[in-house]
């Protein structure tokens, strides 16, 4: 009796295992067949290389580049405020000017421009061949519309004032006091004059950010909420497909005014498991490398080592002090904290030497950067002396450092930093983690004594870090630093027309800020990338700029 029951149960189990096995076999066998035909990029490879063979050196681009990507927050240039969105926008849209790979301003929609002797009026002459993807010519009217739309309240752009606010009358539009920007006037079909409030040499840099890129008025007005699903841009690539969470496909716009892109298709996989494994399997042509995999790709005996590249990025990781909160309102306490941290050792031990220590506040690649170390070195004796001399000697309040995070574990570098303070200064610093949104707004409101944070440059000018973060009344002055002398220097640098003198001023400001230990500059950022050898011409710009046009993929 019970034997029959055992048999029945065993039978059911066996049938299940059998069924699973069959499914697996089908899947594995089917999967093998699939892999080279239906895999994300695989199916396109044959047709893409056929294109390559067929067209040879003709105008139209060839080849396909496959990489990992993320869904952008938006493809609307006016509201985009993050590198992730800008990555796509700079390919699909374009503005009056752009940055080249050396971060120099180059003509884009504007083929040339004149600057008035007082440095305040820019006259842009549009490229007469510039067209939208649907073939319509780009006019001065389109530029004016795009700027005004970006500034308009109903567009809800957080960054519009930041990038276009220097234009006379721009703030009247963003604050709802006017419909048109008084500083923008049309001087012909393809000529536009823009007047700014002061002769600011960095104004052109601001125009390289997506906020001022040109959009198609008819398309936007016909479908204000959904037009970005198939945007009619002016960039070298058209958005061919965007399946949320799955794939974005960019296709070359062969009639682009700066010439047809060499690379025909860019395929971005928006989800999946380990990118490194997919890269090794040949499903991706390039990928970033995480810290955990670094030792492996940096090992010269590893096959991947030949395909490994280090790319500097224009950003800096730092510890900021709230200069109005005890005990960091005393310069000596800040200096002591700076001197007690051995950043080089942290870089070696916690970051496996993958990230360089910062030499100052201005990141590499930005004019004014120098490679000599201007920061405080590791000097624990001096640190203890300074702490003893400070007004808080022997009477330090409780100190908490804030960082962005989910609260589970502290980053390896944060742990090391706190340990240095504990061992060298005998000060126990608490760590408080907050979700990024809360973290940023709490910093704004001066709720932290000190914070571990980073700054990513938006355009390659020292103004974008020194003025934006340290001018006493700047909205982003998160250290609440106020120094009339520094303010005066920053004001002078804004409008200094001699670029050498201007950079010298910024370097002086940088030196004083470091001396006063408003920040402990910690690390400059570096990206770690693997690229297949058959991908040629892929540049690693330290900022978000157009990057696919000149790539050649020959598998």
């Amino acid at each position, binding site marked *: *009796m*019970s034997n*029959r*029951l055992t048999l*029945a*149960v065993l039978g*059911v*189990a066996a049938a*299940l295992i059998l069924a*699973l096995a069959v*499914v697996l076999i*089908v*899947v*594995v066998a*089917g*999967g093998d067949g*699939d892999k080279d035909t239906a*895999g994300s990029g695989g199916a396109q490879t044959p047709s893409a290389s056929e294109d390559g063979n067929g067209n040879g050196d003709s105008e139209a681009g060839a080849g396909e580049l496959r990489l990992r990507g993320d869904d952008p*927050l938006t493809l*609307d240039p006016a*509201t985009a*405020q*993050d590198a992730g969105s800008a990555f796509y926008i700079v390919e699909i849209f374009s503005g009056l000017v752009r940055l080249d790979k050396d971060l120099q301003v180059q003509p884009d929609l504007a083929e040339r421009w004149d600057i008035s002797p007082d440095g305040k009026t820019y006259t842009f002459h549009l490229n007469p061949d510039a067209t939208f993807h649907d073939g319509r010519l780009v006019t001065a009217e389109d530029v004016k519309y795009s700027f005004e739309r970006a500034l308009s309240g*109903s567009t*809800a*752009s*957080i*960054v*519009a*004032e*930041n990038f276009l606010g220097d234009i006379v009358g721009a703030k009247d539009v*963003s*604050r709802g006091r006017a419909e048109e920007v008084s500083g923008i006037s049309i001087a012909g079909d393809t000529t536009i004059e823009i007047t700014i409030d002061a002769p600011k040499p960095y104004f052109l840099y601001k125009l390289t950010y997506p906020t001022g890129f040109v959009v198609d008025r008819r398309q936007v007005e016909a479908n204000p*909420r*959904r037009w970005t*699903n198939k945007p009619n841009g002016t960039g070298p690539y058209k958005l061919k497909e965007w*399946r*949320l*969470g*799955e794939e974005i496909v960019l296709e070359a716009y062969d009639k682009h005014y700066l010439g047809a892109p060499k690379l025909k298709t860019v395929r971005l996989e*928006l*989800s*999946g*498991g*380990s990118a490194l*494994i*997919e890269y090794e399997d040949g499903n991706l042509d390039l990928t970033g490398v995480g810290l955990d995999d670094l030792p492996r790709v940096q090992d010269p005996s590893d096959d991947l080592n030949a395909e490994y590249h280090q790319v500097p990025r224009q950003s800096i990781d730092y510890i900021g002090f709230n200069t109005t909160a005890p005990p960091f309102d005393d310069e000596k306490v800040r200096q002591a904290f700076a001197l007690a941290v051995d950043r080089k050792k942290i870089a070696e031990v916690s970051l496996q030497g993958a990230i360089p220590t910062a030499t100052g506040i201005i990141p590499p690649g930005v004019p004014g950067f120098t490679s000599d170390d201007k920061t405080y070195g590791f000097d624990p004796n001096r640190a203890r002396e300074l702490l003893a001399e400070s007004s808080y000697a022997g009477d330090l309040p409780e100190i908490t450092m804030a960082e962005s995070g989910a609260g589970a574990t502290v980053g390896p570098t944060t742990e090391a930093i706190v340990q240095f303070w504990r061992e060298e200064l005998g000060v126990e610093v608490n760590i408080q983690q907050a*979700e*990024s*949104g*809360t973290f*940023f*707004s709490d*910093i*704004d409101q001066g709720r932290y004594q000190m914070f571990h944070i*980073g700054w*990513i440059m938006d355009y390659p000018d020292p103004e974008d870090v020194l003025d934006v973060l340290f001018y006493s009344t700047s*909205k*982003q002055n*998160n250290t609440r630093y106020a120094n009339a002398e520094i303010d005066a220097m920053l004001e002078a640098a804004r409008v200094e027309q001699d670029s050498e003198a201007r950079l010298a001023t910024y370097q002086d400001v940088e030196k004083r800020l470091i001396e006063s230990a408003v920040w402990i500059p910690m690390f400059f950022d570096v990206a770690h990338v693997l690229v297949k050898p058959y991908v040629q011409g892929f540049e690693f710009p330290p900022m978000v700029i157009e990057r696919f046009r000149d790539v050649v993929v020959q598998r």
Partner: protein
Amino acid sequence: MTDGLAAYIVRRLLFVPITLLIVSLATFYITRWGPGDPVSVYSGQFRDEEAFDRVRHQYGLDKPIIQQYGIWLRDVVTDGDFGVSFRYRDRDIPEVIGPRIWVSARLGLYAFIITFLVGIPTGIYAAVRQGTWLDPVIIGFFLLFQSIPVVVAVPMLVMLFAVWLDWVPPGGFDGLVSRSMLIPTLALSVPGIAGVARLARTATLSTLHDDFVRTARAKGLDEATVVFRHVARNSVVPLMTTVVGLSLVGLIEGALFTETLLGIPGIGSFIYEAVRSQDYNVVLAVVLLITVAFMVANLVVDVALIALDPRVRDSGSVR
């Protein structure tokens, strides 16, 4: 009798909008109460409180919460508009959620089936073997797997199947018939088996010594017939409501971790991302959707049970 059933269904359906109203109001308040807001989250290093306020005003986030709720409710009811997603600003929320649900539904399908097909026979078998070493060993075996948190199990499975054996991709989702299904199916089904098995075991045990079972045995039926035809039908079938509900909860919970860890664009990884970035309207829409899924699943199972249970069916009245 069919009247009774129809009335019952109508009565249950009437509760759907009321439940949804309560759930939506609660979720709306909870998500908007805490510190921070999506405008601030998505602004990253751009800190311009004045600009934030202008944008908040544009989205109506500066209004009192109850008023915001009213506007939201009106838009949902009149236009089917669930508001903007701050993460996917170029799309409508149903459009963002749709493909994700479809991925998760396919991802959970095998796991759902396996949980039942393995869990219920195992539970019955363990009950029948009560008092022998097999009972604790079988249940213990599945409990062991249930005790491994998904966050630990998934990386272990990836290590085993994707790295060492190199059978399957380390993540992603390539469709229902693909090798990418192996790890999520195991991760989603194995922890659930123990739960289902224990419920089936308890239910079986409680029926195993009932009079009608003794009668069946006395009639000379063989043990398998007794267990499957008499015991199981009377113990396991009524259990289905609880089990389906529990499995759904398990699947959604499991999906949250499994999808996040494997980089699968399903509803689990989606809600994780939405909660983290305070994408209010998306969290709300997903919560409502899950609520509806539960209510519908429970209703269908209840109705099926009523239709199948002669006692309920023939009495002509339903509770």
